């Protein structure tokens, strides 16, 4: 039986067994170890020689070897499975306790279809396994990154099948795994979605393949809750060194929010455009040279020139006044000024029109004037109206002046004849003294009435004249510092027709100061108040008094009399024209005096007040600020 050829085969096989880099264990059909090699010993770190194992019961050995495995149960299961099936299987991968990885192949041996033994073939794959782990770690790292990106990322083969999908693209791990190698059509079928999504993607994919450039499009997705989601999708071809498209990266970014903001901005822009377009004023922007960049439609309405035909033209070419050009240049060059308000006439298709203009500079970051914008408003109609009004006012003024001249003239011209009449009456009175007593008494009454009436006309003339002046606006304050006390004390001797019987006492309180006022007007005020005080004081009553009180902020002048006083009901009518108290009797008065007093005092930003009691007296107080 042992022919040399057979011997050779045997020896050779034995040699291979001992030198092959696989740990091999051969058993017979009765699970008795037939042979083992050195590598096997090495892999499991057994303290024995291969020959020592021969003849051992494999089940016993397996019980020992089991200890070397990290997952012993899996090892036992695998062995049992192999033994029961008795078909060639493997490789099975195990991790050992010492950190090595081994692969096991099971090879059964049949002679004439009868099971005749089997061999276990282990190989040490630690290096390979570690390498794989390393690679996996790296790929996990990158896929982690891809998964955590807030964008859908997918990588397609040039045939448009999925090679990779990140977690954002498909949440479900299993489904994601399923998608690999599938197409968008598969996706649509699986998810029961209309295929038009796939159609569009397919169309764009083809575009990428032909153009070899990025393709962008927006996908509108309606979510389960009805909200719209807008996704910007990009196909980016990866072109390798041999200039072929190796794969295509597809990514999608959720731009719903951005889009919303864009829409909002667009909306506000549209709104403001609507406003500007419908604004009655011309709104324009112009470059540094003053050429129109943009004008709103109001321009066409005002000038009649179409906006298009005017763009690029110089603003100055529409302005009538030639000096405007320099004004504009000065404005643009002046760093201090940022705004300019002016009015000028512009040329329109028909006639010149007045406009009111506002210019404002657009400054760049470095404060240089890049351009300017402004508004022009049509004030032509307004100006015409204004002119008309001005004409009317001028006319009115002329008339008023004429009136006041007339009043002036009349009052002067009437005064002299009045003086003549008065003197005649006075002469008559003297002549009258020589006639008999009964007549004398009667006529004396009439003479005195005539005299009173004449004096009243005189006073009336005076007040009418001043009132006329007030109405024609001719009264202007001519303010100077006045030594008030001195003036008021001089007063009694100069201005008022004071007789010896009514000497007026002047009292001063506080520190006298000079007061700023128009003495001419205030003199009239005090003359009026004082002559009233004298007038309404009967001969047997106490003389009026003047009290001047200098306060810290103002001066108070009180003219106090002990005369007939003013009835309560008449007090409120006091400062109205031609209103006189009911108890004045036949005392002369025009009913205009106090109006003038009030007016003049108010011109000085002062106040007049009155306290009065019938038959006790009145006191008028004028309060003037310093």
């Amino acid at each position, binding site marked *: 039986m042992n022919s040399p050829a057979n011997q050779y085969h045997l020896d050779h096989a034995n040699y291979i067994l001992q030198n092959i880099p696989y740990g091999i264990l051969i058993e017979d059909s009765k699970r008795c170890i037939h042979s083992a090699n050195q590598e096997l010993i090495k892999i499991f770190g057994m303290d024995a020689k291969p020959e020592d194992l021969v003849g051992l019961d494999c089940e016993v050995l397996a019980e020992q070897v089991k200890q070397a495995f990290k997952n012993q149960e899996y090892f036992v299961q695998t062995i049992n499975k192999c033994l029961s099936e008795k078909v060639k299987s493997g490789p099975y991968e195990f991790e050992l306790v010492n950190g090595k990885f081994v692969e096991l192949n099971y090879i059964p041996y049949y002679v004439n279809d009868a099971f005749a033994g089997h061999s276990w073939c282990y190989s040490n794959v630690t290096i390979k396994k570690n390498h794989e782990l390393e690679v996996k770690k790296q790929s996990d790292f990158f896929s982690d990154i891809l998964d955590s990106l807030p964008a859908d990322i997918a990588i397609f083969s040039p045939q448009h099948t999925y090679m990779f999908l990140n977690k954002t693209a498909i949440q479900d791990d299993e489904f994601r795994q399923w998608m690999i190698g599938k197409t968008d059509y598969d996706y649509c079928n699986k998810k029961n979605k209309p295929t038009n999504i796939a159609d569009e993607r397919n169309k764009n994919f083809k575009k990428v393949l032909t153009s070899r450039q990025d393709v962008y499009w927006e996908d509108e997705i309606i979510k389960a809750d009805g909200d719209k989601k807008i996704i910007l999708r990009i196909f980016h071809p990866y072109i390798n060194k041999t200039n072929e498209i190796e794969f295509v990266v597809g990514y999608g970014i959720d731009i719903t929010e951005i889009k919303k903001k864009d829409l909002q901005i667009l909306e506000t822009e549209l709104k403001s455009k609507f406003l500007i377009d419908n604004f009655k004023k011309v709104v324009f922007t112009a470059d540094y040279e003053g050429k129109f960049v943009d004008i709103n439609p109001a321009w066409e309405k005002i000038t009649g020139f179409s906006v298009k035909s005017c763009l690029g033209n110089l603003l100055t070419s529409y302005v009538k006044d030639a000096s405007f050009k320099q004004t504009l240049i000065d404005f643009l060059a002046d760093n201090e000024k940022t705004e300019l308000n002016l009015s000028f006439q512009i040329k329109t298709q028909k006639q010149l029109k007045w406009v009111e203009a506002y210019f404002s500079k657009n400054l760049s970051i470095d404060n240089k004037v890049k351009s300017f914008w402004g508004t022009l408003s049509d004030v032509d109609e307004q100006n015409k109206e204004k002119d008309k009004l001005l004409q009317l006012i001028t006319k009115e003024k002329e008339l008023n002046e004429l009136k006041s001249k007339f009043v002036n003239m009349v009052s002067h011209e009437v005064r*002299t004849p009045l003086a003549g009449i008065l003197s005649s009456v006075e002469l008559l009175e003297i002549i009258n003294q020589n006639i008999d007593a009964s007549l004398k008494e009667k006529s004396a009454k009439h003479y005195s009435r005539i005299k009173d009436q004449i004096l009243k006309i005189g006073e009336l003339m005076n007040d009418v004249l001043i009132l006329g002046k007030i109405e024609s606006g001719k009264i202007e304050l001519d303010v100077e510092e006045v030594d008030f006390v001195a003036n008021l004390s001089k007063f009694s001797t*100069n201005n008022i027709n004071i007789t010896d019987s009514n000497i007026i006492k002047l009292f001063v309180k506080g520190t006298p100061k000079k007061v700023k006022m128009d003495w001419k007007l205030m003199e009239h005020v005090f003359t009026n108040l004082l002559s009233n005080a004298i007038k309404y004081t009967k001969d047997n009553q106490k003389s009026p008094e003047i009290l001047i009180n200098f306060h810290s902020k103002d001066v108070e002048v009180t003219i106090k009399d002990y005369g007939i006083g003013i009835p309560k009901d008449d007090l409120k009518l006091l400062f109205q024209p031609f209103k006189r108290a009911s108890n004045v009797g036949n005392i002369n008065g025009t009913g205009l005096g106090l109006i003038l007093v009030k007016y003049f005092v108010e011109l000085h930003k002062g106040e007049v007040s009155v306290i009065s009691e019938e038959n006790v007296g009145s006191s008028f107080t004028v309060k003037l600020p310093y």
Partner: protein
Amino acid sequence: MKKVSIAIIDDNYHLSENLKHLLVINDYHVEVYRTLSRAEAELKKNKPDLIICDLNLPDGEGYDIINSIRKNTGFNLTPIIVLTGVLNANVNELFMLGVSKIFFKPTQFSLLKSTIEKLLVKRREYMFFNKPFQAAQKFIKSVFNKVDYA
């Protein structure tokens, strides 16, 4: 005793004659001038004790004659009463020019009369106290003929 003489400068015939009449009754000597030019010529001759003057006259303004009266040393102490219908007369200027009193027409004669009397009393007192001063003035004037003491 010589009567006190009063000059009236007023162009209104009616008023000036009445006023003259009233003053004459009160024992004054009265001269009436209806124009500025006549007044200026006559006043120097007659040297009145008091002048009653209107402001609006046919040949000029009352201000002018008051001014020239005040510049004339022989006259510069004569009291002047302004009797006018011009209500907006420049009162301050008139007082500055030395006008003693301003009356606006129409004025009661009794007031005018009492004012005239007061002014004449004042003038007499003043003249009395100023006699030595006036003598000195005269002397100085004789030495420096051209000096003007307005």
